[in-house]
């Protein structure tokens, strides 16, 4: 699964994307963040305040309880600040 990071999430993780094999018990976007936190200090730092992080599945906004299903691309980022 391709996982993309943006803004300070990207900076804390230390890279802009990962391609990872995710265990079967990871069902929702929220589950994925919890699992990522166990994958190293950089992930732990990036997802420490998981509540404020926003997510997208295949480039559309979703809530943390959204099922990842067959999505090919998951993204994590802070609240947007364009405009």
């Amino acid at each position, binding site marked *: 699964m391709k996982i*993309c990071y*943006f*803004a*300070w999430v990207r900076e804390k993780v230390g890279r802009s994307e990962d391609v990872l094999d995710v265990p079967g018990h990871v069902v929702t976007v929220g589950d994925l963040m919890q699992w990522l936190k166990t994958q190293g200090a950089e992930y732990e730092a990036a997802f420490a305040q998981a509540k404020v992080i926003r997510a*997208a599945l295949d*480039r*559309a*906004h979703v809530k943390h309880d959204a099922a990842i299903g067959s999505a090919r691309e998951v*993204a994590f*980022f*802070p*609240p*947007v*600040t*364009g*405009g």
Partner: protein
Amino acid sequence: MAVRVQEADFDIAAEMKLLTRGRTDIGAIATFTGLVRGGAEGGGIAEMTLEHYPGMTEDELARVEAEAQRRFDVQATLIIHRVGALKPGDNIVLVMAASRHRKAAFEAAEFLMDYLKTRAPFWKKEQKADGTAEWVDARESDTEAERRWSSGAR
């Protein structure tokens, strides 16, 4: 109906001409231009970097634009958003809504900005004059501004 994400600056007069070319059914065009502010003295901003999510940005802006077209009696709309390194005074975003009458034009332009501010995946990082850098925090007032379009308050 056009959406562009680009590093280059834009020319509002040229964009308006393109939008109205060959038609005489447009009576009103409302626009919004967002610019980089320099910030307070001392803590002033030297540069601003705009990051985005290529692919999703264009999709999201197109969704925002389609929603504006559905809600308001507008004949044409345009969204241009810059990315990359910008200086104080530089243009960031241009939104344009053309209609027969001014009310729909103003409402559509405000709607486009309110939705763009809360939905389009852009992030601003400010480089201060003192060498520090910070990601800009999202403003609660932007979430409130978006919410009014679903509350039936207008």
